[in-house]
């Protein structure tokens, strides 16, 4: 199983890096193979909102930087893990930088999902999605926003499976490992 991990930790955020290592260890225990993108270290321009990736260079962003490679890595995977400090309930800026650049993975054309307008698929298969949010302490409001965001994002990315988990910076290593252990089976579910 191919996994892409997007580490959305901001500069100096050692806890998010630690989570990434725990995650990698958990994945390799299961014989998995993960590509890790530490987004703050990558040169990724912001999305210009030009839609050239739909109407000029279909399927690929016109900006030739690591943003393209991250998108390619996501679509080549069976599981994508978004590892991020929960920021006002949402993704961190570093994660969002790469996520915005991934709309090249879907089609501009429309479809209906559960009665709502969404975009059609571009590819036959998409990765399952696991989002791991990191909070300093419990915060039910932010956790609820985060969970909804992941659900909505999974619909738009056509993820066959998705899960959102939130961990606290104050949690001990044993607890963190068991949270990851419980969250990861999502990746083993068959794709649609």
């Amino acid at each position, binding site marked *: 199983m191919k996994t892409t991990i997007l580490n959305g930790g*901001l500069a100096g955020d050692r806890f998010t890096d630690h989570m990434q290592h725990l995650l990698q260890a958990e994945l390799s225990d299961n014989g998995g193979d993960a590509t890790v993108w530490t987004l703050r270290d990558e040169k990724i321009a*912001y*999305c*210009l*909102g030009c*839609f050239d990736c*739909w*109407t*000029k*260079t*279909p*399927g*690929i962003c016109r900006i030739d930087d690591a943003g393209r490679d991250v*998108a*390619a890595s996501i*679509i*080549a995977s069976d599981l994508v893990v978004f590892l991020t400090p929960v*920021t*006002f*309930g*949402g*993704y*961190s*800026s570093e994660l*969002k*930088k790469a*996520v*915005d650049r*991934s*709309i090249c*993975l879907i*089609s*501009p*054309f*429309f479809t209906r999902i559960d009665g*709502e*307008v*969404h975009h059609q698929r*571009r*590819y036959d298969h998409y990765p399952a999605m696991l989002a791991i949010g990191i909070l300093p302490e419990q915060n039910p*409001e*932010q956790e609820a*926003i985060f969970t*909804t*965001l992941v659900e*909505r*994002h999974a619909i*738009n990315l056509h993820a066959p499976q998705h899960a959102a988990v939130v961990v606290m910076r104050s949690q001990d290593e044993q607890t963190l490992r068991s949270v990851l252990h419980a969250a990861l089976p999502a990746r083993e579910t068959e794709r649609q």
Partner: protein
Amino acid sequence: MNAPKNALLLIGSAKKPGASASEALGGYLVRQLAARGQASETRYVARTMRSESRIGELLAAVERADVFVLAFPLYVDSLPYLVTKALERIAESRQGQSAEGAAQFVAIVNSGFPEAVHNQTALAICRQFAKEAGFRWAGGLALGGGAPFSGKPLEEAGGMAHKVIAALDTAAAALALGQPIPDEAVAALANPVMSPRFYTLMGGMGWRLEGLRNGVYRQLRARPFAS
């Protein structure tokens, strides 16, 4: 309560000045506040986030504002990267400030999909930001199918803008008195401007025409990363 005197508009679209729906919506609201005697200032997130000195100017402008309006496009069910970054910086600089007597914070979001409901998560994030950064949450306005309003002032957008203008007028009247945006303005804006069926029909045609113009009509469904 004293009437607010200074309005700050932060445009969260990365499009050029004058080109975005965010600017059409936020610009209209702030012009209505100016007409009620408020001084107004507009900043663009793409220009701002390019340098530390401009970020410093934004932080100073935020501190001067009585009404802080953020107008942005919905990007992947939430706020665009640049907007998230700007809000992270603002929250960091205002750590520990209380919302009592603080500026009002208003969010206006527009989405590509015609149903306003797509914007709810983004507005929840904005509300959470207001709480963490010590602003008074004055409410969020969501417009589905914003594209037809991009590139020109709302006043020049013709009949389809009537409902939008009415909603923003109601919002401006309340904000000018230091009050939150009334529910009726939120509800009025949330009604789709066009039926989703018509919007997607026109949208699909738009993508095809654009593809044709760019000589890639047959490649619109290309899969460059397929293995």
